[in-house]
Structures are given as C-alpha cells and as structure tokens.
C-alpha cells in the first residue's frame, strides 16, 4: 500500500486470528463488549486495506502531527555513556508532545468510520488524554477522559489542557487511583454506552485487536528511525531502547527492528523505589502471567490473582500490566527488559536537560537512564537509538519538587543551609 506513515505490520505475522502473540493476548472481555470489540476488529481490518484511510491518516500525520519526527544525536549526553553514540527519536516534537498522537489519530478516523459520536479514554500521565482530547476537538467528537485521582494531581497541567480542548475529565477515586483504575472505569463506561461510544485505548494492551492495532499506528516510529539511522550513522543500531508502561512507544520503536536480529530491543520498566522494595511497576521483571484488562500477559499480582498496586514516580508507567506482545518478546528472548529506578530516571532527565537542552518526560527519562547503562556496556563503538516518547513540560512540578527548583520551600531551605538546591537534588 502506498503509504509513507501508516505502515501496519505486514500480513502473516503475530498475532494469530484469535489475537495471540504466542501464549499471550486473546480477548477476555464481558459478553456485553464482544460485539463492539468485534466491530473494531472488522473496521480496522477494512481500514488497513483501504488506500483512502491511509491517505487521510498520512495527511494528518504530516500536516497536523508534523511527521516525520527528527532524529537527534546527543553527544554531550552520550559522554556519560562510555562514548557510545546515542540518537534520540524525537516523538516529543509531535503535536501534543508525545508519541500518543500517532495512535489517537488512527483510532479517531476509525471512530468516524464506525459512525460513533463519542470517545472515551484512560490516561496516566495525561499524554494520551491530551492527544485524545485534541483529536476529538479536531473531529467534533464528544470526549470523556478517565484519570486516576492521584494522576490528576501530579499531572495537573495536562488536566487543564484536556479541559481547554473541551474534554470532560473524570478523576477516578477507586483502587490505587492511578492508570489501572482509570482503565477499569473506562471499561464500565464503555459497557453502558457502547452503542455510540468508542473506547480509544491508549496502549498496546487490552483485548484483541487493540494490541495489534495500536502497534500498527505506532509502527512508523521504528520505520522512520531505522531509515534515518541508516542515512545518518550508516548502519543499524546495536540497541533500540524505550520505556515501557503499557508498552506502546516501545513496540512502536521496536517493531520495525524485529527482523534485524543483531539489534537488541531493550525495554526499561519503572523500578520505582527499587524492585526489591516492592514499590515499583516492573511488570516483566517481577510479574507473572495473568489476565488484566482483556488479555493474557505478565501482571503484577499476588498468589491468588489479586492485582497488586504499582508505584512509579512516572504516572505514565505506573501500571501493573504490559502489552501482550512485550510478554511474547520477553519469553521468546527477542526483547530484553530491565528496571530503572525513579532516581536513575530523574538523574537522566536532568542530564539530558543540561547537556542537550531537551527536557524529556519522566517516562522517557527511564529509557535515557537505560541507554546510559547500555552505552557503558557496549563501549565506545556502540550505537543506540532511544525513543524520546514525550516532552517534560507536564512534569515540571514533579521535577521542581524533586530537585528543589522552586524559590520557596526546598530551594530556600537549601540556600539558608548554605548547601544549594542542586546538591539537594544530587543526594536523591
């Protein structure tokens, strides 16, 4: 199909027709949603083979989103990584500030094709919510965003952005009051309002066809990065590195490199305060296979199948599940997953800001911290591409508190003590 930016997976690969990536995936949904989920699968399959759909989506991706996104080499940052060369795939430069818009525009077009007039979505960091609210404003769709109450507090800027765009934002007060609970609440809404509502799911999890469809909409990330690297560095990277919460930006970067078996695919999970403390959201590192939000995948759970509460400083990674294709990549050995602590991510956030003038999202900073580690392992001949999945504006309150950047409280106290806020930050 002649499309430059909507580049679905070539036919014949995973998942199976039932939505399985090896042992993972499937469709564990209530009967009330079966007809709606089947409709999404049928419509997506039609759209995937319709040149008009690709033309419309390509037009949006170029003229609205700003694709292709840049590939930026970051030598001053890479100096901390043992001399390896590091390139950033700049999804932070997309309209709305993250990779999320790729998927949202695709599913918004699909919503129109299905004749539905209302969109609901979950959001953690607010990036998917902002992207969804943006697309709904663009297409004239009613929009309701579910967001955990804790996340509405730590990502208040994005709540305001969504409301500015005309979306209704509902703060979810059940459970751990984070992303998982926002998804629960969105499912409850969908069951009750499925006739006119599309659930614009934001990651590569959920029931089939969402993991494959959302991956297809993000696949452009890796396709572009691969082409750009061949032009700029003259060869494929040794490693492609991305952060993983639900896993959408990571699968978007990884997928085009899967056949390139010399390219290591490295996902960086949130270790929070450290996997050993139990306060983390490192699903592939510490979870077991189970069912959450409609598919079988690794899940953080206890021995009786109750989902355990995740923790990460990053709202967008604070999720006890993971897309089934990542579980498949892990078990097949094609993907490698490592855990990155809050502190390592925050240090990487500051390092990139100070050495390259790019403030990354805290989510993406987990990938940057992982890349520093991988770079030291590879040595000076190493070549790494990192998905810089989002920009950090939304995180400035969290970062300012973490590093003591405000004139009041921490910074003032530090000044009075004669230590300085930066040293305070370094100690963390």
């Amino acid at each position, binding site marked *: 199909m002649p499309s430059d930016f909507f580049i679905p997976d070539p036919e014949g690969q995973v998942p199976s027709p039932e939505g399985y990536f090896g042992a993972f995936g499937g469709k*564990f*949904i*209530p009967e*009330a949603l079966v007809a709606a989920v089947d409709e999404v699968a049928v419509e997506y399959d039609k759209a995937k083979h319709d040149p008009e759909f690709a033309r419309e989506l390509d037009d949006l991706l170029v003229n609205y989103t700003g694709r292709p996104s840049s590939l930026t080499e970051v030598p001053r940052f890479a100096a901390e990584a043992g001399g390896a060369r590091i390139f950033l795939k700049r999804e932070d430069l997309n309209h709305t500030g993250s990779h999320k818009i790729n998927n949202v525009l695709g599913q918004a077009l699909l919503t129109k094709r299905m004749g539905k007039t209302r969109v609901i979505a979950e959001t953690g960091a607010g990036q998917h919510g902002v992207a969804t609210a943006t697309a709904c404003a663009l297409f004239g769709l009613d929009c309701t965003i579910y967001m955990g109450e804790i996340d509405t507090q730590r990502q208040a800027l994005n709540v305001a952005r969504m409301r500015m765009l005309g979306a209704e934002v509902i703060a979810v007060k059940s459970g751990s009051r984070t992303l998982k609970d926002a998804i*629960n609440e969105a499912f409850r809404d969908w*069951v*009750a309002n499925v006739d006119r509502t599309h659930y614009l799911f934001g990651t590569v999890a959920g029931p089939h066809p969402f993991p494959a469809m959302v991956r297809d909409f993000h696949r452009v990330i890796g396709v572009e990065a691969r082409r750009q690297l061949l032009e700029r560095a003259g060869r494929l990277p040794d490693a492609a590195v991305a952060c993983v919460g639900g896993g959408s930006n990571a699968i978007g970067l990884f997928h085009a490199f899967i056949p390139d078996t010399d390219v290591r695919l490295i996902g960086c999970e949130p270790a929070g305060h450290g996997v050993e403390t139990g306060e983390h959201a490192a699903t592939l590192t510490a979870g077991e296979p189970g069912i959450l939000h409609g598919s079988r995948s690794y899940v953080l759970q206890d021995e*009786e199948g109750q989902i355990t509460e995740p923790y990460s400083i990053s709202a967008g990674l604070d999720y006890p599940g993971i897309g089934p294709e990542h579980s498949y990549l892990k078990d097949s050995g094609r993907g490698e997953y490592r855990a990155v602590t809050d502190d390592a991510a925050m240090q990487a956030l500051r390092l990139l800001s100070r050495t390259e003038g790019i403030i990354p999202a805290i989510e993406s900073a987990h990938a940057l911290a992982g890349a520093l580690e991988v770079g030291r392992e590879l040595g000076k001949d190493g070549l790494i591409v990192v998905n810089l999945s989002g920009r950090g504006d939304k995180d400035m309150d969290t970062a300012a508190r973490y590093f003591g950047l405000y004139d009041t409280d921490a910074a003032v106290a530090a000044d009075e003590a004669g230590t300085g806020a930066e040293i305070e930050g370094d100690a963390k």
Partner: protein
Amino acid sequence: MSGNIQLLSDTLAAARAEGRSALMAYLPAGFPTVDGGIEAIKAALDGGADVVEVGLPHSDPVLDGPVIQTADDIALRGGVKIADVMRTVKEAHAATGKPILVMTYWNPIDRYGVERFTAELAEAGGAGCILPDLPVQESALWREHAEKHGLATVFVVAPSSKDERLAQITAAGSGFVYAASLMGVTGTRESVGAQAQDLVERTRATGTDLPVCVGLGVSNAEQAAEVAGFADGVIVGSAFVKCMLDAPDDAAGVEAVRALAGDLAKGVRGQA
C-alpha cells in the same frame, strides 16, 4: 466428590414446576467479614432465595458498579482468601441444602489453578461458577475441569449478543444462562428495560433447554415480579449488598437481607 450441578438443575426445575421463577441472591464472601458474610448468605437463603451466588472479591471488578466495588474492597482489605470463599460455600450449602455458585473474574481462578479451584469448589459442595469476563471462546480449559467435577458453567448473555453468539453460548453453557437485563455494570436501577424480555426470548429461540435467569438492576419485589413474568429466574445482587452497607450494624444488615429475600420471594411468585 462431585459438585452439585444436578441440585442446581433440580432446584430450577422445581421452581418451574411450581409455575414461578427462581430467586437468586448475590453476596460477596468476606463481606463485611468472612463469618458475617456467611450469616448474610444463610439469611438470604432462609428468607426465600433458592440459589446463592457467592462473589469471590477481585481487586479490579470492571463489571461491577460502586456498591459491589465497595463491598469487594471491604472484603479484600479484611484479607479474604479463596479458602474463605470455599468455607463460605461449604457452610452455606451445609446449613441449607441449597445450590451455591461462585461468581468471580477469571484471573483469580487462572492464577489459583483451574484444577485446584474446581476440585475444591466441588468438595465444598458448590454447584458451579459464573465467570463474566471469560468468554465462551476462551473457556475450553475451564469447562473441561468444571465438567469433570460436576460444576455448572454459567455464561452471561447481553442485549448486544448476536443470535449466532447466543447459539454458541447456550451450546457450551450448563446450569442456566445469565441474561444481563441491560448494557451496564451491576447496580440497582429504577426499571428493568424491555430489552431484558427480548434477550430472554432470543436466548430461548436458540432451542436451549437451559433456564434463562435475568440479572442486573433488579432491586425490589415489583421488579422481581415483572422479570418473573418472562424469565426462569431473577438474580439480585447490589440490593442485598446495600442492605449490609446501609445497616447500622451487621446483625441489622443480616435481618435486612432476610427481609429483602422474603419480599423478592413473593415477587417471583407474582405476589408483589
């Protein structure tokens, strides 16, 4: 020991022979405590429920409204375990001789082990399971073990289910068919819409012999009488849970459960 699927079928057949619908009550295990939950379930059965569905609380009850979410939360914070659910089934059945099912989400059973769970449920005297997020096409392993242990597999059908799916579901299910009266999560509603009757008729039109019982939204005797006019069973959940949540103490809650079961039992006999 084999589970009590036959007792479930006999109970539903007996209600039909009396020219009435069966009354099924839902209450979660461990709510407000394990022993308190057992008392509430026994009161529902004493009061007039023919069958009880014991909820196995889950951390992520995506098909439940605020009432059952609150109850599940209380039960989980109280530390309820699957062993407590089994004890609840066992004591409720032993005290009343009536059929007891378990209703839960798929992950707790998947994690616990299907063989282990079905064997223990049969041993406790359970009659079967309702697993609303296990669709028929993912259910082969469960059904194999449920059948081996004499347990019913009750599938849910919804107003959005297409006719060919209804045929697939009624062919695979056993015990009865759970017809969701409306599109939505659990919770009490002002009225039970016309789509419930349409769904019951479409389900019966598959030619199934299974009784068709209606749940979601029914909370009082008038609604029970209305649903009893076209369904083989009436399932009431959130209204029972509310009895416990709204009561000043557990003993008063248990009495409210008994009284509600009595009212609803009249309703299913057309005496509302």
